[in-house]
């Protein structure tokens, strides 16, 4: 820096090198992105299909919906954020809904999907998608048979006005379950179990009023595209 060179001598090679690298980088990234994007999307769809069809026995196809200003509408490719999945059998009959939920657990966020049956107004099954809960303790929320049994007929009815759940779904300490809207926690994993309850409670509050207001939209969507 003691003997400053003329500007073009110092910065020209620098600009040339940076420009060259930017060009090569840009081409590489765009090619990789373009080549992999369809496969990534297919993988994502397959993962959702697997979860939805496992939660809704008999379902063969699914349609996605999003909630915009308290109204459900069919999702388009551009829609970001949480989706509701409606599963249909081969005759186009609605087999049930699969809804997303998430809440903070012991270590990180627990995200899950659960199935909901409109006729009985209850949760019928639950599947943990991602959690950082302690292996062998908290992560049993995804595998413990007795805990998963909680979600077979979990009461999620709305109140008379249809605006909010009649009873908030809540996790109670192990062995204290008395009501149909209570979840019996796993002994030794109360915080993780509570995260599941909280995720479902929040999600039902968010989605169900719109679901019950628009049942015919969900039932008739099987053959639309």
């Amino acid at each position: 820096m003691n003997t400053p060179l003329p500007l073009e001598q110092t910065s020209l090679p620098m600009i040339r090198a940076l420009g060259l690298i930017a060009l090569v980088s840009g081409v590489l990234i765009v090619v990789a992105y373009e080549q992999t994007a369809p496969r990534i999307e297919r993988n994502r769809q397959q993962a959702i299909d697997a979860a939805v069809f496992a939660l809704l026995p008999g379902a063969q196809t699914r349609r996605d919906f999003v909630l915009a200003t308290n109204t459900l509408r069919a999702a388009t490719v551009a829609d970001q954020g949480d989706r509701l999945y409606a599963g249909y059998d081969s005759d186009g009959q609605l087999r049930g809904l699969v809804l997303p939920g998430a809440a903070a657990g012991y270590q990180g966020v627990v995200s899950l999907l659960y199935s909901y049956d409109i006729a009985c107004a209850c949760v019928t099954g639950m599947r943990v998608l991602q959690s950082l809960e302690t292996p062998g303790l908290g992560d049993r929320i995804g595998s413990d048979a007795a805990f998963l049994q909680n979600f077979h007929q979990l009461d999620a009815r709305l109140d008379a006005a249809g605006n909010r759940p009649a009873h908030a779904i809540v996790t109670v300490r192990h062995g204290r379950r008395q009501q149909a809207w209570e979840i019996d926690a796993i002994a030794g994993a109360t915080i993780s179990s509570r995260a599941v309850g909280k995720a479902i409670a929040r999600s039902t509050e968010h989605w169900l009023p719109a679901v019950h207001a628009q049942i015919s939209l969900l039932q008739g969507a099987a053959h639309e595209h």
Partner: protein
Amino acid sequence: MNTEQPLTADTFLAGLWRENPVFVTVLGMCPTLAVSNSVLNALAMGLATTFVLIGSGALVSLLRNVIPRAVRIACYIAIIATFVTVVDYLIQAISLRLYQALGAFIQLIVVNCIILGRAEAYASRHPPLASMINAAGNGLGFTLALLCLGTVRELLGSGSLLGIPLLGPQFAPWVIMLLPPGGFFVLGGWLLLFNWRQRKQGVKIPVAEVHRHGA
């Protein structure tokens, strides 16, 4: 280090064992600890890093006469970030489950100092072929180290290898091995083993090594 070394078998082998980036020069600790809780994660992370090493090594080496010294680090980082972005999309295309298991650590390959170290110390002074071979050696050395950790942690932590149960149903898994402390303990144990071996062979322990670098 300023002179060009001839291309020999050692170009490849040094990084694999004698100068193993994890066990001997203690580089790239963060991904080593974070994703070695199962053999499959360790293998995927190791191969992804190897890919980035080889790709960036080749490109840095090709451009070594064009890049001015003043901005070389910025250039290397840009090149490395490019390859990491590519590998990030590749892994998503191969398996979404694997991608979720590795999490943000794929993108954090950018700041793995093994890669910047190779670009600066080797690829910027050697032709592309030698750089790629050297990078492959170091990448596989890194993969080997990850596998060493992953094997111990998965075997003791879940009683299985590659998801196949090995130790029978009576085995009570050492859950701690899968948790963060287990990572520290197992890597500490492997380093002790390496130091002990090297001391037996009369090689000086690189004690000061860890003070010299960043991430």
